[in-house]
């Protein structure tokens, strides 16, 4: 194993000189470094979700809004996404406990939150069965269309 410091130097040179591949071999010792080809990697449109259906209630598709969470989610978890633009409320009213929280079991008809837009409150249903893995939005936060609200581990 070559000295870590040398490798660090190699990486620095690689990045500062914008190389995509660097490989060094010396007898038994071999180091190979690779970076993504910068071409087009800055153009953001790769982040556009693959689907473009009318309204994605849920689904493991990689949604732009959720970033890495989604990638991770894509493996096994399922998202519940916002079907609208509005304000997220985790409970029916300030006094009541939240509809669901991490660990809650949900069925397709389970109400998981309400979204308020133009003074109208809409109940959002899970539309899937499983256990809430994570709540992705805080109470009272604004959410946009297609934004993941919950991660659910399907049962």
């Amino acid at each position: 194993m070559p000295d870590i410091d040398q490798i660090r130097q190699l990486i620095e040179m690689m990045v500062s000189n914008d190389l995509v591949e660097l490989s060094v071999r010396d007898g038994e010792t071999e180091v190979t470094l690779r970076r993504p080809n910068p071409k087009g990697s800055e153009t953001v449109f790769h982040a556009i979700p693959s689907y473009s259906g009318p309204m994605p209630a849920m689904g493991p598709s990689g949604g732009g809004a959720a970033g890495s969470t989604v990638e991770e989610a894509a493996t096994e978890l399922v998202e519940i996404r916002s079907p609208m633009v509005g304000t997220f409320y985790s409970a029916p009213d300030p006094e009541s406990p939240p509809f669901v929280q991490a660990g809650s079991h949900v069925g397709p008809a389970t109400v998981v939150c309400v979204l308020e837009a133009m003074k109208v409150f809409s109940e959002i249903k899970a539309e899937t069965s499983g256990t809430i893995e994570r709540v992705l939005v805080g109470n009272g936060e604004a959410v946009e269309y297609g934004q993941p609200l919950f991660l659910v581990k399907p049962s």
Partner: protein
Amino acid sequence: MFRRILIANRGEIALRIIRACRELNIEVACVFSEDDRGSAYLELADQAICIGGASPKESYLKSDRLIAAAEVAKADAIHPGYGFLAENAAFAEKCRACNIEFIGPNAAAMRLLGDKASARSVAKRAKVAIIPGSDGVLEDDNEAVRLAEKIGFPVMIKAAAGGGGRGMRVAYDKTDLLSSLKQARQEADNAFKDSSVYIERYIDRPRHVEVQILADRHGNVVHLYERDCTLQRRHQKLVEESPSPAIDTRTRESLCAAAVKLAKAARYDSAGTVEFLVDSRGRFYFIEVNTRIQVEHPVSELVTRIDLIKAQIRAAAGEPLGFVQKAVRPAGHAIECRINAEDPDEKFRPCAGVVEKFRVPGGPGVRVDTHGYEGYRLSPQYDSLLAKLLVHQPTRPEAIRCMQRALREFHIEPLRTTLPFLRKMMAHPDFLDGNIDTGFVERSF
């Protein structure tokens, strides 16, 4: 003045409004659809909010979602841009009902002028010449025939709620008229959910000349002179210029005065455009009013040095214009070319895809308004306007030469665009002579 504006539009006009807000020191939020996610202009807004799927019906036309977006963005005004909901009076009222100012005229003026039949009666009252025809919507075919015989064939059939040439037909005789009426109603119904049509005298070889109006909430109305938009294809404007090469000073003055009269008669209180047809003898007829900012507004900005978007925002905020007609002093000659992602060799079929090479012209006298860049993905969901190339020079011949060299510098690949067509246009003797009419493109290409 507004603290934060929500832009309920996309593409180049969204970028244009973002620029105006930045310069006015107003915060700006911009909505976007799934298909516009990642567009570079969104990075220039203080906030970008996804409001729905790619199809306009699922996003830019969804009034509730737009207002909800304005609420979560805490915006105190919405700028509709052009197209989509820009001329929808109901949307304007809905915004204002939610205490969000709609940056456009009052709803009454929008309704009055948005419907062509009622717009004609306003013009009549204001003593502005109109094209002889049915006053308002046609009851039935018999009325149409009687009227057509009175006016004299050929006659033009138009959709009352129409625009962009949809639902338009020319009829040369009675039988022609009856079949055309049917088609026109059909088209109008599909396009506007409103099949009502009217007819008027068909003006042969007219020029399309429009007057830019600027008005405030205090009753002040000025005009920013005219734009000549005669170079069209199927009623789609391709090139606009100011001043018009085809009208003399006297015609110009009465044309602009007529537009102001009409705007005042309708209690108009924002930026807008009054469109006229000018016949070969210099007589002009009012045709319609656009109660919004237009694609070609920069032409007037260049010759008058007035920023129309800023002025429109100030007016909506209740500020008085702050200048009088005499202060509007046009200088030089401006031309705009619309660079659309359309294939001129295939009936201007729209093209979509990723822009790989995008080199815009620059240097003296050149202005480019575009949301495009290398790597931009042009969606087939929206209109094909990719860039507006404008030039401003002391005289028309200089402006044309400047446009020629700028078009030569503009490179877009691999998408087909109207660039080659526009290069031909700028070298066409009839255009150079200013000797064209609205039918020129169909006849010559």
